[in-house]
């Protein structure tokens, strides 16, 4: 069964976007690297339980944008508020505390290759012991691995895992701190279509179970169609177009249409 075509498992069944204070509020973000002006006044809000997909050409600044949301990059100007806190005015301790509320799934998984899967999941927990639930660290690790269907890999090293398994373990490592927001940087890139579909379904299931809000950076239109409550098209450093997937596919603007041809 092609689960992507299953209406039960697509964005149409995803929780409706909750109205309320945005979890992420971005206004007028500019970012340059030398003469390369990547972001030119980007605006965006992310609402609770929303799946927001950002699409754009390679080099359009999508990854730079989500790196600005976790302090891996800093905008040259603009406002970045995460959970009501201005990211640019936080001390290092406050920033580290905020980062536990924002999970980040890297494009290449970024598993610590000198550690086993268990140690990969232990790593953030041991540095934030206030996040360990009464059930205990080991139970949390196994339960999180079960939620991504890979409990049997607990003693394996990343080098023993396939690309899809690495992506799931990276997601488990992100989930173990129970973040309120998850940022996905091209979650399906480099995966075969079947594994990509599995990852998409996993993202949807986790979003439904844990009531997280997500920003997904992707080139994969199938992924965008299935996951998105809302899509932003990033062109020339600004949010050029915004709407549901269906609204954007019917948009007549040539720059928007270029993404869906």
């Amino acid at each position, binding site marked *: 069964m092609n689960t992507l075509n299953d209406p039960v498992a697509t964005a149409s069944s995803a929780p409706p976007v909750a109205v309320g204070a945005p979890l992420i509020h971005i206004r007028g973000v500019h970012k340059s690297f030398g003469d390369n002006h990547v972001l030119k006044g980007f605006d965006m809000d992310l609402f609770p339980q929303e799946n927001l997909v950002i699409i754009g050409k390679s080099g359009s600044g999508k990854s730079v944008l989500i790196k600005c949301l976790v*302090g*891996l990059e800093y905008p040259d100007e603009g406002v970045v508020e995460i959970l009501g806190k201005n990211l640019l005015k936080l001390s*290092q301790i406050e920033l*580290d505390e905020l980062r536990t509320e924002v999970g980040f799934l890297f494009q290449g998984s970024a598993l610590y*290759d000198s550690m086993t899967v268990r140690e990969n999941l232990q790593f953030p927990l041991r540095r*934030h012991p206030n996040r360990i639930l009464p059930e205990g660290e080991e139970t949390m690790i196994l339960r999180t691995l079960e939620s991504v269907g890979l409990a049997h890999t607990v003693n394996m090293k990343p080098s023993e895992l396939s690309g899809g398994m690495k992506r799931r373990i990276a997601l488990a490592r992100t989930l173990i701190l129970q973040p309120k927001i998850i940022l996905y940087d091209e979650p399906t890139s480099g995966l075969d279509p079947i594994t990509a579909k599995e990852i998409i379904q996993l993202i949807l299931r986790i979003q439904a179970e844990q009531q997280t809000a997500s920003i997904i950076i992707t080139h994969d239109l199938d992924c965008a169609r299935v996951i998105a409550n809302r899509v932003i098209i990033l062109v020339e450093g600004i949010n050029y177009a915004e709407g549901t997937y269906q609204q954007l596919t019917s948009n007549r603007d040539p720059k928007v249409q270029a993404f869906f041809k």
Partner: protein
Amino acid sequence: MARIFGCTKTTFTLANHPYTYLPPGLRNFLTEVGHIAAFAGNFFRHVFYPPFEFRELLHQCYEVGNRSFVLVSLTGFIMGLVLSLQIRPTMIEFGAVSYMPSMIGIAIVREIGPVLTALICAGKIGSGMGAELGSMRVTEQIDAMEVSGTNPFKFLVVTRILATTLMLPLLVLMSDTISLAGSFLVEHFKGEVSFTLYFTEVFNSLAFSDLVPATTKSFFFGFVIALVGCYKGYTSDQGTAGVGRAANTAVVIASILVFLVDFWAVLVADIFYDL
């Protein structure tokens, strides 16, 4: 505002600054020196403040010691053999062969042991750290640590620099001992010198002023080797070529710094101990 090496720095423009009129090569060199100094400053900023990564520090101590033990022992032993074999004919010619243990002992403890061990470690540990951290940077593992609310500088850099600074003097002492053992074998088989006589002569010729500067400079050797290795890896450019470059330049710069530190250590030791 930007964050450099995990700490907040205010960026400023250098337009029309005299610095911009320097030749590009010199400007790049000074910039690199400035970055390494900032990196070292950040090490001292982090090393005294919690959380302390004791488990990782012990792991790194084991890695540094274990990774270099065989190589340092082997090169030390061969150096002891070769030194004795090379010097012995000249000493016989001058009728001073009885001074062999004293001379070899002083040469190894004061200079050859520390510098040789440091150079071996620069090649082994410095390049290893440059490649390992460079690879972690390229595969976004360092970023992953950062976004999980962990300080990667403290976990990866502080532990490695501290471990190498602590372990290098131990490796030097071990290398000195094995070098002297190698030298003793030559003396024993060529000059029929007994173990007791050889080492009595060695220890009689050594003074406090030989051991203290040599051990002290070993701490500095360890510090600069790990500092440069970690700096090059941590700030590695994107891509696998950057990792290779990081490992390579880490060895070159660390080796040069070892000799510079050695020169200054000898000058300072001369002031305090009148060498």
